[in-house]
């Protein structure tokens, strides 16, 4: 894309420019044109670092996010729901793979990213540190958590880094299925027995605030936002996306015949924006700092799976090496 400005070509043509200066100019032009940066293009180190952090954080979230839902695969209350849930968790593993691959194009291998996760140096979405205690949480996770993820991710389909943007196109298509199945679970429960309806309402009550916090801290406190917006990675601010999401779910919850646990939700006609009650950012920071309900459990599971699988990965590597050697001899 836009290779006619290539600084490498310029250097080859012998115009004597410093490659870093030429690279920066080329990069700035791409951003100004709202075009795409590709893996071999020159890019500022900070841009690369920001992307690796964001993409790997997203990948880790998909992987850790398999756990709360995996918790209900064995107990799903009908075979059809079990099949849908398995397909969904499998999609999440797939999203993790695309995203790790996108991060690898920036020069960081999957093993390194995984080590960062296990060492507690990389983050994943805070929402997955909350427990999925009831079946209705499968509905609330799909509707609210995947719903919030979609609001966040649809604009990322236009992110300036090509491989990330393209991965997001595919991820978003599957996420919209996920959100729909979550809503369908809740709708079935809401129209079911009183106990089922109560289960659905409790799940929404529990998941609502954490889902809103998925958009990140308020714009006034967001550490990475303005630079990411300047780089065309982020297109809307945390608060803008959060307001948009609240507006969507405020309408959808009426179809369920259930309520959101926030009496302050209203559409402000003057500003044209949805308003909502104060969120407990203290709790958000606590969970982010590792003091949430399931942080330790999620990490233990990931570490255990990784350690228990070490001998399998070693065997696969040894087998591949032996086979390669054999082919060389032959």
């Amino acid at each position, binding site marked *: 894309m836009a290779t006619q400005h290539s600084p490498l070509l310029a250097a080859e043509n012998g115009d004597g420019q410093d490659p870093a200066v030429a690279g920066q100019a080329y990069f700035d032009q791409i951003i100004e044109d709202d075009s795409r940066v590709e893996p071999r293009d020159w890019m500022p180190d900070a841009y690369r670092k920001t992307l690796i952090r964001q993409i790997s954080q997203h990948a880790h979230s998909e992987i850790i996010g398999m756990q709360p839902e995996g918790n209900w695969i064995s107990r799903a*209350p009908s*075979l059809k729901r079990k099949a849908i849930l398995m*397909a969904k*968790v499998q999609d999440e*593993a797939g999203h993790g793979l695309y995203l790790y691959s996108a991060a690898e194009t920036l020069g960081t291998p999957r093993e390194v990213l995984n080590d960062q996760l296990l060492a507690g140096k990389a983050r994943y979405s805070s929402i997955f540190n909350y427990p999925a205690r009831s079946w209705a949480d499968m509905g609330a996770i799909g509707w609210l958590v995947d719903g919030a993820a979609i609001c966040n991710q649809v604009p990322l389909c236009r992110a300036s880094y090509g491989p990330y943007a393209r991965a997001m196109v595919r991820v978003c298509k599957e996420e919209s*299925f996920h959100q729909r199945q979550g809503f369908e679970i809740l709708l079935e429960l809401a129209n079911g027995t009183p106990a089922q309806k109560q289960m659905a309402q409790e799940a929404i009550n529990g998941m609502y605030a954490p889902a809103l916090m998925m958009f990140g801290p308020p714009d006034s406190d967001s550490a990475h936002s303005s630079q990411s917006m300047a780089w065309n990675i982020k297109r809307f601010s945390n608060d803008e996306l959060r307001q948009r999401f609240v507006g969507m779910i405020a309408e959808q919850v009426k*179809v369920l015949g259930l309520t959101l646990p926030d009496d302050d939700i209203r559409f402000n006609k003057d500003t044209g924006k949805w308003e909502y009650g104060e969120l407990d950012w203290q709790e958000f920071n606590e969970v982010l700092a590792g003091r949430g309900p399931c942080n330790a459990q999620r990490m233990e599971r990931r570490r255990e799976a990784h350690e228990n699988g070490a001998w399998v*990965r070693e065997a696969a590597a040894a087998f591949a090496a032996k086979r390669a050697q054999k082919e060389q001899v032959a």
Partner: protein
Amino acid sequence: MSPVDTRPASAGPAAGHASASATRLTPGNALRPEDIAGQVAGGSVVVSQDVAGYALRLGDDALVLAQRLGWWVSRAPELEEDMALCNIALDLLGHARSFLTYAGGAWGKTEDDLAYFRDESQFRSVHLVEQPNGDFARTIARQLVVSTFQHLLYSQLIDSADATLAAISAKAVKEVKYHQDHSHQWVLRLGQGTEESRRRMLTGLELTWPYVAELFDDDELIGRLEGVAVRPSSLRVEFDRLIAEVLAEAGLEVPDVPRASGGGRSGEHSEYLGHLLAEMQVLARQHPGATW
């Protein structure tokens, strides 16, 4: 964002429409449980007690193994294996749903009635599928046996005189071919990988082998279903040949261990099934009569 579809999943004819399922992995000619239920309910297909009993065996084998394999999701050695094992479990669950729906047609029961509201002694699965996952090698050993057996079985069952069993098998046979390839590839890697993987693979095979023979037991039901069911004993020679071939390539040997007595086809199970069912059935049984 796409608009949310507000139709209840079970509302009228829409439920049987292709768009009602997010899990239709084989578009086009796939025979879905909903289609089978429709045929039985419409009277175009009648299920005899014997055919139902046979379908129940195949369905229970697939269901119990799917339940076991589902455990691996988020616990596999590599992300690709989370996906592969989950996909295999999902295929098996699909086969189970079709077989159980068909079996239920003889008794006015749904797939979920059969999966969630039968007790341990009413299950007709073999002991092999209810054995613990163990480590990855033990799971792969079990996969090698089951996928090889099921591929032989479904390859023949596509010629069954019973059109529904033939149709379910026609879909299943393509999928278990992949399961067979998956287990084959891993047996080679574990057998020839490292000392540790070879040792674990040998242990996995030894723990698995006492439960192999039961797969090939004939009985009276099979005798009454000539031309409809596949006689399990008839698959043994080819099974042994295929297994010997894979294990030889992996530098492993067929374990020499005595067979367990079995009894799964008449409802006598190992101690493991009760725990598996307790977990699988708990929520459905807490809300009898509810729909999900």
